[in-house]
């Protein structure tokens, strides 16, 4: 009979292993310095997602990004401009008719921040927010702008890694039983998977996509736990034999570990995503309900549970804000679906003390114009728009930057998407100029060759 000669000799595990991990390891050298590298080398290679020390003083440990895909109209929600009301009906600069919001605004909190009547619940958190009101980006079309917001570049010819994958690459993740980067219900268009992909970074840094039902492929055990354990014991027995053979491949130890982890994930992840076990008052606060109407509320609650469990980057998404027409009814509908859950998420994070180390980012790929488009709509505006941050590392009740009096162009505290990314990385303890990965002959960054950290917003 034919057998490979098997020797019981135990092979030594060496440092350079599979190409993916190997490159990650080499790039890591630049981040950690040589000494740190030596101590972390085998861990970094064997388990690339283990937590890594940030290079800068850490302000936030994790991010929840609440993405309002399609460009929510700031003029009708949270960007109050008295001049817009005064100029209502007049011709706007660049053409078009200046059109004030049909919704009433009023002031909230000690900061007296204005919100429209569409966001009464979110408005209650006015004093926690750190507004970025001088944002601008490069392309007034969703497909490129959404991709740029997520990857730093709108150049379709060279796909870049997404923001969350850069964070995993730089920081690893705290909970090895869970994916470190989760995106719930991401946009199915506008770049689709590119927005949570890892491009040229190794695949383990990519985002794990789950649905708002908490569905993840291959997570449900194929057989009863006792039977599957029996099968797994057989697999692991074979794996240990294989690891003992002379010259066995280096990653076998990692494979053995990955099976135990996968087996545990089958229980832990569904448990974590099962929001039915949350107490009634929490579910009510978020407005949890079944069906499409409850989608965003479920995402918010899952986001809190994932963050609480140590997931580094969670993104949730509500689309349908592209109001070229039907602005009035469209906004009523969309804001109704996000106002209560978003507010509940902020309250819940605060009640659990999580805002001390969790950073929340809320906003769209760009804004809309103060002028009218058609009967009842507003067109895109990339020259000045707002997002807010809340939680770890940022000032509370603070506003950075401003647009002109009609809210068209950012005139003060201007922040490009690259600056936003540089600042987010800095808040997470990473230097955007040093977080690099060598690909196709050069070192790539999330911020390409630009990006200024806006320290003014740091708490």
């Amino acid at each position: 009979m034919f057998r490979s000669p098997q020797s019981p000799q135990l092979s030594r595990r060496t440092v350079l292993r599979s190409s993916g991990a190997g490159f990650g390891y080499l790039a890591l050298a630049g981040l950690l310095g040589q000494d740190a590298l030596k101590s972390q080398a085998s861990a970094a290679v064997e388990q690339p997602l283990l937590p890594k020390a940030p290079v800068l003083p850490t302000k936030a440990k994790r991010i929840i990004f609440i993405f309002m895909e399609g460009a929510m109209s700031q003029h009708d929600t949270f960007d109050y401009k008295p001049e817009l009301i005064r100029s209502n009906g007049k011709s706007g600069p660049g053409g078009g008719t200046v059109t004030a919001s049909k919704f009433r605004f009023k002031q909230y909190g000690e900061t007296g921040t204005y919100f429209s009547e569409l966001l009464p619940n979110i408005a209650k958190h006015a004093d926690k927010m750190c507004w970025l009101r001088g944002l601008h980006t490069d392309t007034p079309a969703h497909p490129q702008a959404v991709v740029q917001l997520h990857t730093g570049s709108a150049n379709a010819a060279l796909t870049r890694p997404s923001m969350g994958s850069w964070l995993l690459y730089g920081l690893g993740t705290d909970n090895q039983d869970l994916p470190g980067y989760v995106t719930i219900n991401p946009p199915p268009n506008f770049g689709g998977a590119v927005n949570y992909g890892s491009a040229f970074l190794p695949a383990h840094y990519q985002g794990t996509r789950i649905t708002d039902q908490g569905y993840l492929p291959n997570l449900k055990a194929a057989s009863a736990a006792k039977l599957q354990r029996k099968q797994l014991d057989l697999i692991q027995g074979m794996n240990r034999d294989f690891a003992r053979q002379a010259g066995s491949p280096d990653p076998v130890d990692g494979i053995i570990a990955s099976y135990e982890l996968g087996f545990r994930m089958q229980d832990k992840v569904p448990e974590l995503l099962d929001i039915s076990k949350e107490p009634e008052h929490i579910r009510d606060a978020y407005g949890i309900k079944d069906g499409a109407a409850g989608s965003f509320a479920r995402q918010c609650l899952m986001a809190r549970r994932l963050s609480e469990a140590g997931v580094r980057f969670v993104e949730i998404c509500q689309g349908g804000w592209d109001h070229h027409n039907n602005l009035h009814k469209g906004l009523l509908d969309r804001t109704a679906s996000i106002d209560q859950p978003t507010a509940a998420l902020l309250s819940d994070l605060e009640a659990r003390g999580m805002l001390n180390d969790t950073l929340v980012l809320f906003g769209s790929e760009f804004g809309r114009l103060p002028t009218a488009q058609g009967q009842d709509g507003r067109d895109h505006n990339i020259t000045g728009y707002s997002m807010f941050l809340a939680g770890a590392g940022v000032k509370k009740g603070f506003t950075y930057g401003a647009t002109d009096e009609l809210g068209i162009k950012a005139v003060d505290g201007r922040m490009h998407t690259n600056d936003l990314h540089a600042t987010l990385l800095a808040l997470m303890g990473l230097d955007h100029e040093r977080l690099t990965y060598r690909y196709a002959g050069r070192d790539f960054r999330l911020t390409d060759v630009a990006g200024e950290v806006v320290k003014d917003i740091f708490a």
Partner: protein
Amino acid sequence: MEPSFHPSLLQDFIGTHAALLRRTVGAVSVVAGLAAPSLLANPAPDAGQDQSLEFFEKKVRPILVNHCYTCHSAETKPAGGLRVDDRNGLIMGGDEGPAVVPGNPDKSLLLTRVQRNHAKVMPKEGELLTDTQIADLSQWIKDGATWPRERIPASIGRASAEYDKLKAEHWAWQPLKAPAVPAVKDTGWARDTIDQFILAKLEEKQLSPVADADKVTLIRRVTYDLTGLPPKPEDVYAFLKDSSDNAFAKVVDRLLQSQQFAEQWGRHWLDVARYGESTGPSRNIPYPHAWKYRDYVLDAVNRDIPYDQFIREQIAGDLLPAESSTERDRLLTATGFLALGVKDVNQRFKVRFTMDNVDEQIDAVTRSVLGLTVSCARCHDHKFDPIPVTDYYALAGIFTSTDHCAGVRNKMGGGGLDYYDPAMLVKLASDAPPVPEGDVEKLKAQVAEAKEAWDKIRGTPEGLARGANGQPKQRAFRLKFDRLQGDLLALTDPAARGHAVHGVRDAKTVADTEVRIRGEAERLGPTVPRGFLSAFQVPGTEPINPQQSGRLELAKWLTSANNPLTGRVIVNRVWQSLFGTGIVNTVDNFGINGGQPSHPELLDYLTQEFVRDGWSLKKLVRRVVLSRSYQLGVDAPDANREVDPANRLVWRHSPRRLTAEEIRDTLLVTSGQIQPKPEASAAKELRMIEMRDNGAEAASIHRAADKSLSRSVYLPLLRGVTPGNLQAFDPVEQTLVTGQRDATTVPTQALYLLNSPFVRKEALALASKAAGDTARTAGDWVRQIYLLTLGRSPSDVEAARAEQFLADYESTYQAELGDAPVLAQADVRESSDTSTTDETAAKPPVVPENPDNVDRSDQVVVDEAVVAPDAKTAAWLNLVQALYASAEFRFVR
């Protein structure tokens, strides 16, 4: 006259054309001197120029900014295709024609459309222009439509001492050497010259190669490396029994002649060619004919088309002679290489769309064939390699002179078939299959009927009344008319009928192109004659035929035996495929930042031999696998590991992990479920309409991929729609040239192997054979399953453990559940087409007019159970699956 730029022409150019240029408003003012450092980059313009510029800035630009920008600028959109923030934008104009004809206000649409008595007076919104403003616009156009000049960076075209040094010193672009075969101490070891090169380096470091691999290991290794599949048990038996000297050579020759070799090695090229069946981000439009290029590649590998010819066909197939229409079609299909890249069809500006596609092509060609990152020189001179920005635009001119026939056009915010441009497909040369006339007549009648019905109800109170679904009743009529029209087109349009490919052809206008300042498509610098790279010289290079794009000469330049990179790069790729690491470990980058070759002399030696052998990939592969170096065992003595941990010197054979495709294919082959090559690709059925991740089209592709039992190279591979059964094991990133796959270890791989319905189904298929066989013993089947999955027999201990597992599992199963098959449940991909239907029915969209407002919430996921019929089969299923899941299974040693 176009300003031209070339080192030798520069002095002439500056002397004779500078004055002319200064008058050519909006074009280039002057060029920095290559050998004339005293020349200023931006000399002071003359006085007249000064005045007209001032007029523009004071009077004209404010009109454009204040009244037009909201709908016609880079920061907003080009409504009607027009932008007014760029002089070329005005001159090229929008959908209705040029907006500005310098010197001729009467012919300038910009002026006509702002007249108050024009039926469609501009601006549409806001205040109309005053008479003074109109007069100012008119005056400005009459005076030649002055625009501020582009400032040309002084660095453009300047000779660089640093570049000269790099050109002279970097190994990769020196001519191939004919190295002497090194002497070795151990004269008995080498079997081929390759081995002498390997052994000489080892001896230099006082290392010895480990023992040869045993025959069982060797046949599994070579079968996977050459075909991507495991050896059949009978092939293993035959090889073991064959004690002749050329037993291994016989195996190798059999594998080289098999279709499976083409499937494996064709796939290697498809990785490098960033093959994908859709445009990818930002709006994902399918390429329904891309599979023909895939088949072309597999066929070329199968026939061992010489590599130089293979490259020439892909870059200039349309310009090569063909003896028959079948051959013409084959050559046209080859140019799919250039067309099938990522494209941003939502790009607002044609010039940017063009230059982005050109860049994508330059990147694909130079990285795949030359191992150089020429794209870095799009915006500035290459930071590391001696590739000036002028070289980049010399190449760019070749591609701007080429029609990029992927079948798409650019448009901002389009929907439906807006992005489809059948004129921008390459029609095949052979006769299209005849149109079924009867069907066409019948359809024409139906279209006419539907049109009449639609015209009749359109806009009537009855038509506008809302039906039960909340939609106006007339909508159904419109939809019917649209559908029938589409059906008719599908029958009569040769492209729609599949008689076309995505490829390229020479453009109607063939011309050199301008350097773009900082890579910005609109900012024109000096024009550069079309040409190739200057980092190295290729003796015998033919000048570009001025009547053609230059792709033919580019193809010849690339594949000249004197090109120092092309041969080295492909030989290195082959080496990597067989040894796990290239002689140069950065297979896609041979530039300054790439790796140093571990065996430079061997690389040159093999490349020379490869060219001498007629660029035959099969001969190269054969020679390498027959070397003793390839046939080493995997043992790893500590002494060797300490000196050379990465095994760069090849003292043993490095194990490699199977690719995603190899894992899936092995399951299909071992279960016996494998099906032959499908006729086309599931993508063939798609129309060139944006495809969303959760739409019916993507769902149909996922379903087809999930159901497919053919080899993975034939799966539909639309960008962003990666087949679920490839996802766990680092599938290729289809948007990028990828010469090297990742091999990560993550728990999702464990979950996939434990729980995926596909893995369970394949395990069940094999398990059913074992469980249902009364003629053979359990022991026989255990051995057979080991042979199939791991390519070897089990040890006695392993066999006993497996049989023990079967007995244990069966009894536990029965104790837990009886014989009732209730336990096995597995996930399947969400059936999003169902959920989409549900959504529409349950909840009328808030903004039905905007196709970009897509909802995707609340997707229904249906679980599929893979169930063994009884306890015995369940036990076998779990044994087979355990072998599939074992670490040994996923490595080739």
